[in-house]
């Protein structure tokens, strides 16, 4: 990029050709106030806060939309500009109902900060006091039109960053407001609840119910770490005050491209399920009653020792959720396969793992997950095959990656799913195979890429035309990526996985496959060998004469039906969990797990990157890290 020289406030500064005047100012640490500008979004010059004077221009111009060029002479600060900026602020304050003293954003508001900076101690213009509604029916977000300055940051964020484009302007002129879809309540719209609009809002016009009135960002401790919930491993900026998480933002630049989702942004801010706060033991009358940690650990250790001594190691099994931290999983593996010497160690999603590995091994010699491709390769691909996934529900940030790849890189999207397509606007072809015919459909697609017509198109539910179109796209691709999710994983069908790999192999010279795993730390559990069991432990308890089961759920709230069917012949069930799912009622001993925010821990992202999540707040009194509890039990075994 060609270097250009400008004179700003009397100083010679460097910029790049293609920069705006604002960008040159920002790279040279020249302070220019902004409101409608947000890094990463296109500039629209709506608010007029960044006005600057440019030699030979008859009037002040917004720096954010003015292209910088060699030799430009710019003035960013003088009395006239200060007057203009104050005037703009007065207009904004009088246009709608900005009552700072009652506003949720007071003390954490860009509009207010600028009013302070420009000493706006009164507003000369007539107040409009428009009667404006407030939409509070969404699960997490409230839109208060009274505080909106129509900067459009939320709209551009929803469109350009998230790719959902739920928000836009509705009506015209005086009646202009931010609307969701065709003026639907936000809670009933296509909103994916990622909260990016909330973070983008410079005032209190969009706020979060879970952060409101808990505290202000400038008055809290800021911790930058990683969210371990879904396995993408998004960077987060958490704000903590008095041992309370008040808000989670996306850091400006991180591996998640400024995105977050409803799970990462809002989930940790309040407890969605009742907690297990103390250990509990089933008493002689069959009721669970609280006990001390020491008692609980003693009982578990004594019972497990007894089972090992009287019934043998193979009467004991351990099953862990892929939501537990790597430290917890490691300690759990040592307890079950080491200290207790049992071969029955599994993860809740172990069957999925075994299908994936079997599927890969039918395709290539190296049958492990290191063959998976980084999720961010979506941005490097010109063709994306999305199979059996609703990313906006399970891995929302991945959904945004796909939309951005389609829009910014002109990548083609093929959706392969018998029932749903959450990205209809961005899909080139939606292949809708009949249920149960997915493998056949993928193989037919691979075949039609070789030029052979498919005879059984009707049987697989996809028309010849669609198959040919998809084959053409895949055939032309230089680099393709297959992203598959729970729709494929839950079938536990190795043949289907093989077919996906085979299809990927024939589409483009460089191809990759990545699975959207069901739990945030599944990859770590799988890599660690937690799911290497030869049998499906939870489904085949009776066939394997398993009498004692230790279930490590950690902060995974699950109502999976195979767990609800427990105890199924078990004599002893230990559940270690943060929450109280119905399953807990069937346990003989319940051990309290902390939530990830209360201990932190190591995790592995779904594409195999080790990350570390920091502790953000303290756990409830007496609650210890999962690995500590498990190690203590190991230590107490006789």
């Amino acid at each position, binding site marked *: 990029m060609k270097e250009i020289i400008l004179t700003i406030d009397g100083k010679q500064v460097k910029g790049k050709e293609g920069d705006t005047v604002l960008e040159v100012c920002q790279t040279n640490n020249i302070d220019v106030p902004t409101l409608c500008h947000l890094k990463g979004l296109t500039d629209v010059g709506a608010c007029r806060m960044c006005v600057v004077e440019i030699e030979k221009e008859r009037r002040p111009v917004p720096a954010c939309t003015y292209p910088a060029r060699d030799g430009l002479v710019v003035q960013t600060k003088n009395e006239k500009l200060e007057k203009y900026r104050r005037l703009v602020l007065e207009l904004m*304050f009088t246009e709608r*109902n900005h*009552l*700072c*003293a*009652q*506003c949720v954003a*007071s*003390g954490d508001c860009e509009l*207010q900060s600028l*009013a*302070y*900076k*420009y*000493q706006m*101690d*009164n*507003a*000369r213009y*007539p*107040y409009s*006091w*428009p*009667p*404006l509604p407030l939409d509070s029916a969404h699960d997490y977000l409230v839109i208060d039109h*009274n505080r909106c300055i129509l900067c459009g940051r939320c709209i551009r964020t929803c469109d350009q960053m998230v790719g959902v484009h739920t928000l836009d302007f509705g009506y015209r002129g005086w009646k202009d407001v931010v609307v969701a879809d065709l003026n639907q309540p936000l809670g009933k719209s296509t909103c994916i609840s990622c909260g990016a609009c909330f973070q983008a809002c410079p005032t209190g016009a969009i706020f979060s119910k879970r952060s409101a009135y808990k505290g202000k960002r400038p008055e809290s401790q800021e911790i930058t770490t990683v969210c371990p919930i879904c396995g993408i491993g998004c960077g987060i900026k958490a704000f903590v005050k008095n041992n309370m998480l008040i808000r989670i933002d996306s850091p400006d630049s991180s591996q998640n491209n400024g995105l977050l989702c409803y799970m990462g942004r809002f989930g940790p801010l309040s407890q969605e399920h009742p907690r297990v706060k103390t250990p509990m033991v089933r008493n002689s009358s069959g009721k669970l009653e609280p006990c001390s940690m020491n008692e609980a650990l003693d009982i578990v250790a004594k019972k497990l020792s007894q089972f090992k001594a009287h019934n043998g190691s193979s009467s004991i099994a351990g099953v862990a959720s892929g939501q537990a931290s790597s430290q917890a999983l490691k300690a759990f593996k040592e307890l079950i396969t080491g200290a207790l010497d049992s071969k029955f160690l599994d993860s809740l999603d172990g069957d999925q793992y075994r299908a994936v590995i079997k599927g890969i091994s039918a395709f290539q010699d190296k049958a492990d997950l290191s063959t998976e491709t980084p999720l961010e390769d979506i941005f490097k691909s010109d063709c994306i095959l999305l199979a059996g996934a609703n990313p906006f529900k399970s891995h929302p940030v991945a959904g945004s990656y796909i939309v951005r790849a389609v829009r910014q890189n002109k990548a083609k999207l093929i959706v392969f799913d018998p029932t749903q397509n959450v990205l209809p606007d961005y899909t080139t072809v939606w292949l809708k195979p009949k249920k149960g015919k997915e493998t056949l459909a993928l193989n037919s697609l691979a075949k039609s890429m070789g030029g052979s017509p498919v005879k059984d198109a009707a049987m697989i539910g996809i028309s010849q035309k669609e198959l040919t179109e998809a084959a053409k796209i895949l055939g032309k691709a230089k680099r393709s990526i297959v992203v598959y999710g729970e729709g494929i994983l839950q079938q536990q069908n190795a043949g289907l996985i093989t077919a996906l790999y085979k299809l990927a192999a024939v589409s483009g010279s460089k191809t990759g496959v990545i699975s959207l795993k069901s739990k945030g730390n599944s990859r770590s559990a799988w890599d660690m060998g937690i799911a290497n069991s030869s049998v499906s432990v939870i489904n085949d308890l009776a066939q394997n004469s398993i009498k004692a089961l230790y279930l490590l759920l950690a902060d995974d709230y699950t109502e999976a039906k195979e767990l609800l069917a427990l105890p199924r012949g078990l004599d002893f069930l230990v559940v270690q969990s943060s929450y109280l799912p119905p399953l807990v009622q069937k346990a003989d001993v319940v051990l309290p797990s902390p939530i990830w925010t209360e201990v932190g821990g190591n995790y592995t992202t779904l594409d195999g990157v080790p990350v570390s999540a920091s502790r953000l707040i303290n756990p409830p009194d007496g609650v210890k890290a999962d690995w500590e509890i498990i190690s203590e039990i190991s230590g107490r075994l006789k």
Partner: protein
Amino acid sequence: MAKVKVATIWLEGCSGCHMSFLDIDEAIIDLANAVEFTRTPITDIKEFPEVDVGIVEGSVGNTEEEETLKELRAHCKILMAWGDCACFGGVCAMRSSLDKEDVLRRGYIETESTHEGKIPGPPGVPALLDQVKPVNHVVKVDCFVPGCPPEPKAILYGLSELLAGRIPVLPSEMMRFD
């Protein structure tokens, strides 16, 4: 040197600004040596003498407030506004986007504890204006100390500047709207 004569009024507001003024601690002793307070809600004097400085807390929401404000303006050389209500309308202006009749009905008839309510009006009670106004939308105001309430140090800054013969403009770091 003759003392500077000051009058203050409390219009539509909560008296928080006057409380914040009383909160300036020991500075009030020096101030009392330099300033003579005439009519204020604190002295409870009703008449307006000619004063150097008039200070107004609260916004203008009814006819009586409008009249009182105009009277103060007529009797003072410099008028200073205290607090968000006077500077911007503040909490009182929450009703401005609503219909006046709806507000009166809700307040005097529909409140849960009211039995057979009646909307009062002139001459006993002054009539509400359609919308609440900041004071500078009614009379000329010379200086503003915003805040809800303004911090005592902001109030003291405003008074000290006036005593030093300058028209105060709050520095950015003293600006507060809450």
